[in-house]
Every structure is written in C-alpha cells, then in structure tokens.
C-alpha cells in the first residue's frame, strides 16, 4: 500500500511515452481533455479513440495496470451509461416493460458518453503511469512559470508539492508505528460502534500532528542551514530536456485540436 501512495501509479519503463518530456505530456493531455469535450460530433470521439490507442501502444504498459487504477472509475462510467440509458427519450423504443422503456437514443448516447469518459481516463492514467510525481511537479512548475508575472508563487507551490511527495512515505511509516503503539496499549480500531472507532482514531492523529510540527520546524532549520533563501538565484539539478519527439507529439495533439475546431465550426454540435 505504501508504495502505491509514494510513487503514485508510476510503472517504470523506457517506452517512447516514458521518455517524453513531462511538459510535452502535460500539454498533450490538456489539449486532449479540452478538445475531446468541446464537441459531440462522432468524428471527435473517433479521433480521440485513435489518439488513445496510439498513445496506449507507445506507452507499452500492460492493460492490468490501467484496470488496477480504474476500478472506481469504471463504476462512474457504468453509472453514466445507465443514467443515459434510462433518461434519454430519443429514437425508436427498442425494449419496453411496464415500468420503463429503453430507446435507441439512450443506448447510443450512453455508449457515447461512456466511451468518452473511458478514453479520458485512459489518457490521464497514461500520464501518471509513465511519469514520476517528481517529474510531473517539475513539468508543472515550468509550465506555470508565465503565471509568476501575475504574482502566482510558482516556485513555492512546486517546492511545497515536492516536499509533500518526499514526506508522504515518512508520515505513513509514522502512522503505522503509532497505530501499533496504540494497539499495544489496548486500542481497538476494528471493533465497536462507528463512534467508538472514530474516537479510537483521535489518539493516532494527535501524536501525528504534534510530530509533524516538530518535523516542519526541524526541516525549516535544516533548509536554512543549507542556504535555502527562496526561488531567487537558484539553479536546478533536475533538468527537463525537450526533444524533437516532444514537439512531434504536441503537433499531433494540436492537429487533433484543430480538426475538432473545424468540425465544431463547420458541423454544428
């Protein structure tokens, strides 16, 4: 469980998508999400499907990893499908009972929405499956840089995120330790009424909180001792390298965006 939280869903690999610059991946995903949802034209969905299968192929990540991360999402997708199935009253009826009738429009609408969501989630998991959270943070930081002019503290935000990533495993370890310590004193987290179980959690969180403040203080001292003075004048050890293939990938997604726009303007819905 611990590993899962720390590295997110990252699956190490050397595929084309793994080696892409996180900035390129983020840009592609953003273009994809925005333009997939801009139009309801079947072409748009077909284009999205093609892009997703291509990306899936190039990421070389076994299907089971997607499925593992998507159990919850499958429920959402099913729910969307069923909702559309029962609530859409278009086209000829194809199945009717005294209580409800299912129309053809419902099936196509539901199928359309479900596919769209599925494609979206696959694409998003592709990003987290092939990119470490650290690389993602780096990518986000550089992409957010223009916002700095508007007064957004981009360095601080990214730094906070990387510190959080660094400390999540430490805090989880500590939580496990505290739970054990409280168990040894007779605390019971698995039995009793809900209220009692909730109360049992308090003695876990209080020490965790106190300890976290201590940690934060120590960390601040250590950072100061190591000459941290904010983002000004800092150099970076982790460099992002933008290669030709990153440009190509972005061009492909930009073309998709362009096609969607043309379809949208030319074809109505």
């Amino acid at each position, binding site marked *: 469980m611990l590993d899962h939280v720390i590295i997110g869903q990252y699956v190490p690999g050397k595929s084309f998508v793994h080696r892409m610059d996180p900035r390129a991946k983020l840009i592609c995903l953003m273009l994809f999400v925005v333009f997939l949802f801009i139009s309801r034209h079947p072409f748009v969905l077909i284009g999205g499907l093609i892009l997703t299968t291509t990306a899936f192929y190039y990421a070389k990540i076994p299907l089971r990893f997607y499925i593992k991360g998507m159990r919850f999402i499958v429920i959402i997708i099913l729910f969307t499908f069923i909702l559309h199935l029962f609530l859409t009253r278009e086209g000829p009826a194809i199945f009717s009972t005294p209580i409800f009738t299912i129309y053809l429009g419902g099936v196509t609408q539901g199928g359309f929405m479900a596919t769209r969501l599925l494609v979206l989630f696959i694409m998003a998991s592709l990003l987290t499956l092939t990119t470490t959270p650290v690389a993602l943070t780096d990518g986000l930081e550089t992409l957010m840089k223009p916002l700095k002019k508007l007064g957004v503290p981009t360095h601080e935000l990214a730094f906070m995120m990387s510190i959080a990533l660094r400390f999540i495993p430490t805090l989880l370890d500590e939580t496990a330790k505290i739970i054990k310590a409280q168990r040894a004193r007779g605390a019971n987290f698995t039995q009793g009424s809900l209220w009692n179980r909730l109360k049992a959690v308090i003695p876990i969180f209080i020490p965790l909180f106190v300890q976290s403040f201590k940690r934060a203080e120590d960390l601040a001292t250590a950072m100061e001792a*190591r000459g941290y003075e904010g983002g000004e004048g800092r*150099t*970076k050890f982790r460099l992002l390298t933008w290669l030709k293939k990153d440009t190509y990938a972005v061009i492909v997604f930009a073309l998709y965006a362009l096609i969607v726009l043309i379809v949208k303007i030319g074809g109505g819905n």
Partner: protein
Amino acid sequence: MEIIQMNNVYFRYRPSDKLVLKNINLTIQSGEWVSIVGHNGSGKSTLAKFMNALFTPIEGQVLVSGLSTSNVNNHTLIRRKVAMVFQNPDNQIVGPTVEDDVAFGLENCGVPYEEMVQRVQESINKMGLNGLELSEPHRLSGGQKQRVALAGAISMNPKILVLDEATSMLDPTGREEVIRYVQKLNRDENMTVITITHDLKEAVLSDRMVVMKDGAIIGNGLPSALLTNKDLLKQARLRQPFIYELVEALTCRGVPISVGQISEEELVKTLCKLQQQM
C-alpha cells in the same frame, strides 16, 4: 589558526526565559575535531546553531573565519563555510532522491548545472553512496540517511562540519559507519569537525572535548584527561565510558595499564600481551 571564536556569548530564547547560554568562551582551531558533551537540555544544540548564524548572541560575539555572525550580511557566506547535520535523518532530507538531496545546497547557491552534477557525484562517492543515487530516502537505513545528509553538507566544500547528535538515532553499525566517514573527512581533508553527542565513546575519538552543564562550559581539554575526572563527569551528570571504568578497575587491582588515550582494540591487545607474559 582559529576558525571559530566565541567571546562572552549569552543567549535566551525569549526575553522572559532564563539564560540558555551563559558566558560561553570557546575557540576552535582549523582542522581540529572537537566534541561537545553534556546532559539533555544543557544547551549543546543551541550552541551549535551559533556556529552557522542560525542564532545570534544577545550579548557577546561569534566569529566564524573572522566574520561576525551579528552582521546579517555575513550570514550567506558563513552558512557556506559551516555545514550542519542534525539528529533526525528523516527531518533534514529535502530531496525526493539521494542525488536530488545532495544537490539541494548547491541549487540554493546557484551553482551552474555542469559543476553541480560533478560535485554531487564527488560527494556521493566520498560518502560511499555509489549506486544509491536514485534511491528514495525512506528506503535507506539510518546510517545511509545520515551519510546522505553528510554528502549534502560536504558538497558545499565547507570548512567546518557540525554534527548535532547526528548518530544518536542510529543503531551501533550506523553509528560506527557515520563516525568513520566523519573521521576520514577530518583526517584526509583537514576539515574542522564539531560533534555534539552524549555518547562519550564517540567523544573519546576527538582531539578535544568540551563539557557543558546548564548553559555553561565546565570542562575543556583532552578527552582522556576529562574522562578520568570523576568529579567533572558527576557534575555534568555524565557516565564514564565503560572502557575507562574497566581500566580504572584493573589498575586498582594492580594490572599495569595506563589510562592514556586508549581504544577498545588497544586494550584487548594490551591485556592479551599481559596474559602471555603471566
């Protein structure tokens, strides 16, 4: 050449608190290994934080390489000369991987990329962490974590290394591992080392020992001299290391061993020799 000079330093955390440091006078020579010992709350950590301007005295003066810590403009420079390693390895590693953490200090002072990569690798090699460059800190042993912190510290090419109980949370193997590397830095690179500890076994290894009690220095001299001074140790509420107790007990019984600077191995050797002679 004196590299740290503390003259009549007084300090309290808040104006209403009692004094935490009282009239501290301490001079540390370049290349020396000084250990500071004392009971919990005697002010060792507070004292350490004066050495790289994390705190400044309310009265008196601290000079690091001749620079006064009371002048805020000196702080950046002083912190580059004095590297610190703290007690809890988990609370001082900032980077998501070993190499990222070692690079942290260098990033902060804007070292160019190529030089940074080179210095990070050098420090990692020096601390024997090769092969762990990409490991995540929480997967390392305590001793390894502290060596990462050490690598981060020495990547800045500091003149002075201050270790505030850096070994107290480690198991014996980890302790020995860290101390061995520190000893190497002191001997081979002539780095000034200040170790704060309440493990007197560690203090035995240093050139000079400073004993603190309730914010004042009550002893300052050769470890072998101070560790045989029972009054001083009692006053400082410190326990004589086992090896000294043993040597003393043996001399009481007429075994001819001197209580000079003696290590465990040396003692074993001497005793074996004596055994053969008998």
